[in-house]
């Protein structure tokens, strides 16, 4: 009997694998994932209603996250605010620059406001959800859960860990090994159209298998704007999965640092089939070298569009932070792409200070699904009157607007580093003007 059980499970597994991998090879979809998504949504809504009902019975207010800030902030400038404070204090001539003891109120209140709620630090941790998605890692109101909900939660956990996880790991394994072997084999072919064709399809096929390994349900919009050869594709960065999502719909040249271990093996195999741009660790610090290599790549029209994430670090997908200007100085056409994840099915944000890569991937593979939308925006080029920074900001605003994200000027590097003193000096300069004039 045990033998029979073992055999039937193996057969089932293999059938499942075949049903998932074969469509991936040809790029078709049966639509199973969409049905799965709709069913899950219904269950989540029901779960949230139950929790709300439970809370109402006990007469307690529920904890609801507010994404748009918890305090009222006025968007006024330093000059306006201080003038207003002075105006209410005395009837003296307002435009005369001078110092008032009441000026301190402005700095004091601004400081306390940022302590209560600031724009930057909340971008580096996972977004809070309004409804519960049956993952205990996102539940803040768990004491209102009834027995029925507990059973559902347990069932959900069983499905995710015992059924979906092994399946996904098997798929991921298949995808990665096919990528490595496929690209190595293609690498032996002589350069020419045949090699390019095969290389493209090997890459696409393997990325599609990886997409299914994560149960990623992706909606692509405006595919006619997809990046072309000789261009640079820029996108907002939320997690390493962004690469898989974009590369399963287009053929890109990757840019990155050479890693050791499994990543290194993959990188070395990939570069045999088509020219990606991998930098040694020492080369990364040298900005001119990086710029030179990228420029060479884009000027060769036969080479693929480069995929770059100018934020430089993972942000939690509620905002877009400062774009580093390096990729905007090269002078190529920029194809912006906006990626917005739906956090209900699984939060894709990689909090690298909290989780390592393996823990992160495990969390991804035990979520329900990764649902996201990708918008391909029309290409942009640098206008003669703007410099690289202004161009970068323009592209950033376009991406933020399309994805419904907050457009911030702050540097994503603030996740780890301290803010530069130059900003404080700016504030001090502005204030000095108010005291002594120009």
């Amino acid at each position, binding site marked *: 009997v045990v033998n029979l059980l073992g055999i039937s499970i193996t057969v089932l597994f293999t059938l499942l694998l075949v049903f998932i991998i074969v469509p991936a090879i040809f790029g078709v979809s049966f639509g199973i994932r969409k049905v799965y998504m709709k069913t899950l949504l219904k269950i989540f809504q029901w779960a949230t209603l139950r929790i709300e009902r439970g809370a109402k019975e006990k007469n307690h*207010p529920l*904890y*609801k996250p*507010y994404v*748009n800030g*918890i*305090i*009222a902030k006025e968007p006024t400038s330093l000059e306006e605010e201080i003038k207003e*404070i002075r105006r*209410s*204090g005395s009837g003296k001539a307002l435009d005369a620059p*001078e*110092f008032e*003891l*009441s*000026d*301190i*109120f*402005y*700095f*004091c*209140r*601004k*400081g*306390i*406001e*940022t*302590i*209560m*709620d*600031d724009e*930057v*630090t*909340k971008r580096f941790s996972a977004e*809070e959800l309004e409804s519960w998605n049956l*993952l*205990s*890692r996102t*539940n*803040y109101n*768990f*004491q209102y859960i009834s027995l029925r909900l507990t059973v559902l939660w347990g069932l959900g*956990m069983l499905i995710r*860990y015992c059924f979906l996880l092994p399946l996904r790991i098997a798929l991921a394994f298949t995808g990665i090994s096919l990528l490595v072997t496929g690209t190595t084999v293609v690498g032996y072919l002589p350069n020419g159209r045949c090699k390019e064709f095969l290389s493209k399809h090997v890459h696409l096929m393997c990325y599609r298998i990886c997409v299914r390994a994560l149960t990623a349900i992706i909606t692509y919009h405006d595919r006619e704007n997809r990046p072309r050869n000789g261009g640079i594709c820029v996108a907002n960065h939320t997690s390493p999965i962004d690469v898989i999502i974009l590369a399963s719909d287009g053929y890109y040249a990757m840019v990155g640092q050479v890693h050791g271990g499994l990543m290194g093996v993959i990188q070395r195999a990939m570069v045999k089939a088509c020219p990606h741009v991998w930098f040694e660790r020492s080369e990364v610090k040298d900005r001119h070298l990086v710029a030179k290599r990228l420029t060479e790549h884009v000027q060769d029209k036969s080479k693929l569009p480069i995929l770059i994430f100018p934020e430089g670090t993972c942000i939690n997908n509620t905002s877009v932070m400062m774009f580093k200007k390096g990729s905007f100085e090269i002078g190529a056409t920029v194809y912006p792409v906006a990626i917005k994840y739906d956090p209900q099915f699984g939060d894709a944000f990689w909090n690298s200070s909290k989780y390592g890569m393996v823990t992160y991937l*495990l*969390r991804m593979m*035990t979520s329900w699904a990764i649902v996201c939308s990708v918008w391909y925006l029309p290409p942009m080029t640098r206008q003669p009157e703007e410099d690289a920074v202004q161009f970068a900001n323009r592209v950033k605003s376009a991406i933020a607007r399309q994805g419904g994200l907050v457009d911030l000027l*702050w540097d994503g590097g603030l996740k780890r580093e*301290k*803010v530069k003193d130059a*900003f*404080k*000096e*700016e*504030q*001090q300069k502005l*204030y*000095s003007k108010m*005291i*002594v004039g120009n």
Partner: protein
Amino acid sequence: MQLLVVEVLRGWPGRSGASCGSWCLLGGVESKRCHPASRNVRDPSGPGCAGVVGDNSPGSHYCGFRRQRSAVQRQRDLISHSQITRLYSRFTSLDKGENGTLSREDFQRIPELAINPLGDRIINAFFPEGEDQVNFRGFMRTLAHFRPIEDNEKSKDQNGPEPLNSRSNKLHFAFRLYDLDKDDKISRDELLQVLRMMVGVNISDEQLGSIADRTIQEADQDGDSAISFAEFVKVLEKVDVEQKMSIRFLH
């Protein structure tokens, strides 16, 4: 908005993870390790916690939180339940060391505060004399100064202690930002130092000195070349302190 009567966190020991009930035992990848401070919670009868489910969210420590409300006492500093929850969530997200208290570095990690010229003075206001850590109760106490003054409170009787967000206490908060050595006087040196913080390198020493002299001259009434709190209040008597030193919650 439910205005719950809350004891202003008297003796809040830090974060407690106890009383999570049976949920904690359903461990696995989902549960975090129990907060070490939770074992010292003042409720030894609570069930032992094998793990705290969920992230650094108020939900997981909410149970211990509600426990504190059972020993309530009417306080003047009324603040709604959801506002406290939100501020607690903020407190825990700032607390990178996860020990239930904030240090000066935790505050300096906020970029918008780090670029505030008086950032260090404001951070200092949270820490009582000689201490390097502030717990949630201290955090709330300081923030309570910035609660807006409701109209119906203005006419309340003066029997109880003055609320932290009264006009006088708000002015006192600002006074303490100037008064570096806490001797209840703003001397010329102290004023110069604070001015230097606010303007950086953009103004010369002489100019700054004359500004400080003029300010003290205008405010000083008892001739000691320093500004006492009473003189400070007199200078600012017309300023709309209630509005300028208040922060309104959105919900």
